[in-house]
């Protein structure tokens, strides 16, 4: 899938990440990411949704090679980086973490945290220039230069997340994985951070992979949305198209679960409730990963794994039972 053109900043092909689990002499694999292929265009935001434990975060980190992929390919700007030396690429690809409390070193001042990427990549020889760059980064994310001498524990969650963003921006990357950057923050702060990410994108032309489980935020920020289930990508399309015309039964269920802030429409809404739990990724079902909970499952679903196929322009889904 995916047209091989220069517009794609990131392209991943059949990416796999298995975590081995040893029990006695037997080694089994947790298939956190299994055979995922997708592309991210330059300057766009690709949202990635799915329930907890479906492999969103693992996918994001595997793209950055924070986890070594177990199989498949990662292309950055058309070059294969699956085995490449990552050091120069760390300047191009960055990550913003979910938990602003754990992602900042408690023993370093904010200035040192933001300045660390500058030191690692030896971007400034001059101490004064380095300091100026740190100040300007802090100001970019809405903090003051006075904050540089303080320690992370003196800041609130939202401010800490801004520090984390400043650190990611320090190397002037092209591609940023936002790993649930707002889910640890409260709602009013979430809006501030999301708006700031959008402003930064408009200003500097970043490409985002935005991982979240809050569908309304993903809808707000993304150009396209991918839906993951049990390590597989089950649907991928334009964000408006996904909300208007979800094809995969799992996406339909997911969308029907969005709460509506109006009791009248909410009551009349037809909510699809799934049976059972997510199967263990240690022992996934044969064929389609969703078949155990799918209301439309057939014989074929148990035998054959559905491929991601294109239905209409740029709308991909992996299901046997889509009539079109």
């Amino acid at each position, binding site marked *: 899938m995916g047209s091989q053109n220069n517009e794609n900043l990131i392209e991943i092909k059949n990416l796999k990440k298995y975590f081995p689990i040893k029990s006695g002499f037997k080694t089994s694999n947790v298939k956190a990411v299994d055979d995922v292929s997708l592309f991210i265009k330059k300057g766009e935001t690709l949202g990635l949704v799915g329930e907890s434990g479906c492999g969103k975060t693992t996918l994001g980190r595997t793209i950055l090679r924070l986890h070594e992929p177990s199989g498949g390919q990662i292309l950055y700007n058309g070059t294969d980086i699956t085995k490449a030396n990552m*050091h120069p690429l760390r300047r191009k690809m960055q990550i913003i973490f979910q938990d602003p409390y*754990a992602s900042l070193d408690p023993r370093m001042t904010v200035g040192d945290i933001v300045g660390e990427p500058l030191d690692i990549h030896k971007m400034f020889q001059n101490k004064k220039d380095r300091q100026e760059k740190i100040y300007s980064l802090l100001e970019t994310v809405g903090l003051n230069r006075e904050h540089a001498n303080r320690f992370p524990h003196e800041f609130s969650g939202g401010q800490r997340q801004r520090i984390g963003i400043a650190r990611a921006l320090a190397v002037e990357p092209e591609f940023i994985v936002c790993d649930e950057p707002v889910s640890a923050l409260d709602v009013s702060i979430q809006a501030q951070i999301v708006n700031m990410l959008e402003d930064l994108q408009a200003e500097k032309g970043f490409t985002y992979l935005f991982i979240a489980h809050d569908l309304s935020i993903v809808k707000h920020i993304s150009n396209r949305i991918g839906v993951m289930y049990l390590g597989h990508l089950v649907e991928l399309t334009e964000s408006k198209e996904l909300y208007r015309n979800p094809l995969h039964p799992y996406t339909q269920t997911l969308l029907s679960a969005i709460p509506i802030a109006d009791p009248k429409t909410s009551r009349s809404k037809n909510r699809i409730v799934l049976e059972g739990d997510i199967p263990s990724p240690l022992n996934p079902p044969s064929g389609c990963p969703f078949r155990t909970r799918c209301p439309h499952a057939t014989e074929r679903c148990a035998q054959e794994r559905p491929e991601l196929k294109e239905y209409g322009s740029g709308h991909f889904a992996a299901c046997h039972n889509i009539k079109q």
Partner: protein
Amino acid sequence: MKLQKNNLLSMQIKLSPEDFEPATKQEQEDLNKLTANTSYWKDAWRRLKQNKIAMISLVVIILFIIFAFVGPSLSPYTYDQQVRGDENMAPNLKHLFGTDQLGRDLLTRVMVGSRISIIIGVGSALIVLIIGSLYGSIAGLLGGVTDNIMMRIVEIIYSVPDILIIILLQIVIKEPLQKAFDSGSALGWLQKLGPGIVAIFIVYGLLYWVGMARIVRGQVLQLKQMEYINAASALGANNKRLILKHLLPNCIGTLIITTMLQIPSAIFTESFLSFLGLGVSVPMASLGSLASEALNGVQSYPYRLLFPAIAISIIILAFNLFGDGLRDALDPKMKK
């Protein structure tokens, strides 16, 4: 002041600009005090100050260091000066701790001996700190097969009998060391200590770091799961940077405590070895060798054993109690 509501059922309160007034100076100051930044070290110092035993130990340690390092230069005698006619004196005004059978002032010798003991204690603890923390953090960070091999080596070293190694090492290094002393002058102060002490340092460097390495490895295994370590590697930090900038600074509490508790154990080992005659060479004194010499005439001159023994006890007790207090202060979770 009674607050007016907007309407009967509403939770909203009717407020007008007159309901607000600027905060007084006092209130502003109180707010500043509440939000005053309490850093890790300030917090630890505050907790340490509350611990009376630890503070007394700290004072004792400081006094002892003054006693050992400043004392000898204030004394009218040197540690190896034999005062004719003053042999075998009991404690008196001229010689506060008395003299030995060669007429050497015991007070000066105890001061110099304490100095040796403290140097050995601190020096060995530093050797252990450097080797142990680097070894442990490398094993913990790399993990997998490397960790497995490195920790098996630690276990092998753990099982080696240390006293045997010290005795063997002393015999082996005695001659080459003596040659080095004769040729080069840079090792002058080591020469004064003698091959026994050098052997002790080497043995600490070879054998005693394993405890530290295990503790640090445990901490690193826990710390490397933290998100900020991931963040640093996403920025391109190499292992050296991860260890020196992130992992070791974050286990500084454990490092300090383990090092502090290493000091008394090293002092004890040195005293023990000197007592067996394996430590400093004559005429240099250490607390252990003083006790050993005193043993010959213990029936007639018991004070000769008493003073060095008291000195050993005080140093070890003070360092141990201070180390315990430091552990409580640096690790708030340990406190009841």
